[in-house]
């Protein structure tokens, strides 16, 4: 029973000491400790949040970059494709043009040749006519003298009249 009986003196000192202890520790220990704990927690939390935000921003930047890159790549591909198309077209056009030109040149040449030929033939005709006339003239002139000499003359004239 002795153990279960509260002692008044001990109670008095306990109330005094514990009261002082609570007030003292509250002012000089718990409040500074808890406030700096909280401060540290806040700073850690804000640091974590900032890291998270930065990460999100990085991700966004990266996706933007990717997008820009993809666009650039598409542009480049398009340009290459266009250039190739233009080149092809140019080659084809050039070929066509060359063929046309060639044909035209050939046609022209053919025409020129034809004209030359016609001119040459007409000239030749003219020349032949004039030769024939000349021969005939000389033959007629020699007829008067001698028949054999006429013949010699004719053959010599013929040999002279080289058709060049």
């Amino acid at each position, binding site marked *: 029973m002795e153990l279960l009986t*509260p*002692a008044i003196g*001990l109670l008095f*000192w*306990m109330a005094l000491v514990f009261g002082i202890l609570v007030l003292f520790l509250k002012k000089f220990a*718990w409040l500074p400790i808890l406030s700096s704990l909280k401060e540290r927690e806040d700073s850690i939390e804000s640091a974590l949040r900032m890291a998270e935000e930065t990460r999100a921003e990085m991700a966004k930047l990266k996706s933007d970059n990717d997008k820009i890159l993809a666009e650039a790549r598409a542009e480049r591909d398009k340009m290459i494709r266009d250039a190739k198309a233009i080149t092809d077209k140019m080659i084809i056009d050039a070929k066509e043009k060359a063929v046309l030109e060639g044909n035209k040149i050939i046609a022209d040449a053919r025409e020129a040749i034809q004209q030359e030929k016609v001119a040459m033939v007409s000239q030749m005709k003219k020349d032949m006519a004039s030769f024939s006339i000349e021969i005939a003239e000389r033959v007629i002139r020699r007829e008067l003298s001698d028949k054999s000499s006429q013949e010699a003359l004719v053959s010599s004239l013929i040999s002279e009249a080289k058709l060049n």
Partner: protein
Amino acid sequence: MFRKITTKLLLVISLSLFSINFISAQEGHEAQHEKHEAQHEKHEATAHEEEKFDIGKMIMHHISDSHEWEFAHGLTLPLPVILYTKQYGIEIFSSKRFAEGNGVYNGYINNHEHIHRLNPQGGIDEEVHVWDLSITKNVASMLLSAVILILLMSTVAKSFVKNRGKAPKGIQSFIEPIIFFIRDEVVIPNVGPKYEKYLPYLLTLFFFILINNLLGLIPGGANLTGNITITLFLAVLTFFITHLNANKHYWLHLVKPEGVPTLMLPLMWVVEIAGVFMKPMSLTIRLFANITAGHIIILSLLGLIFIFQSFAVGGVVTLFTLFMNAIELLVAFLQAFIFTLLSSMYIGSAIEEHHEADHGH
């Protein structure tokens, strides 16, 4: 010679760690025996009665409060005795005076740590009520614990302020997780969002109980948290804090619990009111009984050495005591934690905001 050996014996045994105490025990036994023979001629029977080892008395002596602090037999720290009587006023003197005067000094008698006024005839004066406000062993131990706590916590607080926003250092890194644990695992989940108001009290409560539990485990230490006055005070303090802050839902719940038929109400009042007072009662007894029981077990085990006075028993008892000490160390933390946890729960239940939707029927 006898006194010296016994002093040594008790000192060593109370440390309860070294098997050397068995040798001392044997020495003590021999010394006792010699003294027996010396006194044999004078007082045969009485001497024998006096020297007989009373384990119950020894245990009670160790777990009770005392006006002097006896670390070991013969190694005693005298403490101030402070008395107040209406008739004679305040008296302050050293407890050494009682020891010198065989329990009597200046008209006061120390009868088993209860101080009474003597009347001229030499009997106890029942007319005079002595208010004993002495710095007893428990009070001295309490003051010591308060000084330790203040020094420790202000050091920790200083290093907190110094290392503001940085990682903890030194003793701070030992105390900080405990504070964190009490705040985050004990107080916040149980008290609720308004925890900040109660946190200083609950932290002080935890560390006060813990440090006194630990001081009580040191051989020669006082059994402060195993004293019902202390546990009662703390429990009543929690009771007052709970009920002075209780909101109207708490009171309403006591008077008219929801979902109870009107006829049953008187019965519920009895149950609820019993519950209100049972809470501090259980707090009081739980801490008191746990700590006192631990001390009694250790003292009983050590007492076995004196009863049997054999090496074999001494060896076994030493191992058991070592084991018990380890358990007591665990209990020291556990009981401080439980007291704080239950206090938080009681406070939390009284200030809890009532939500109609949450009320399960």
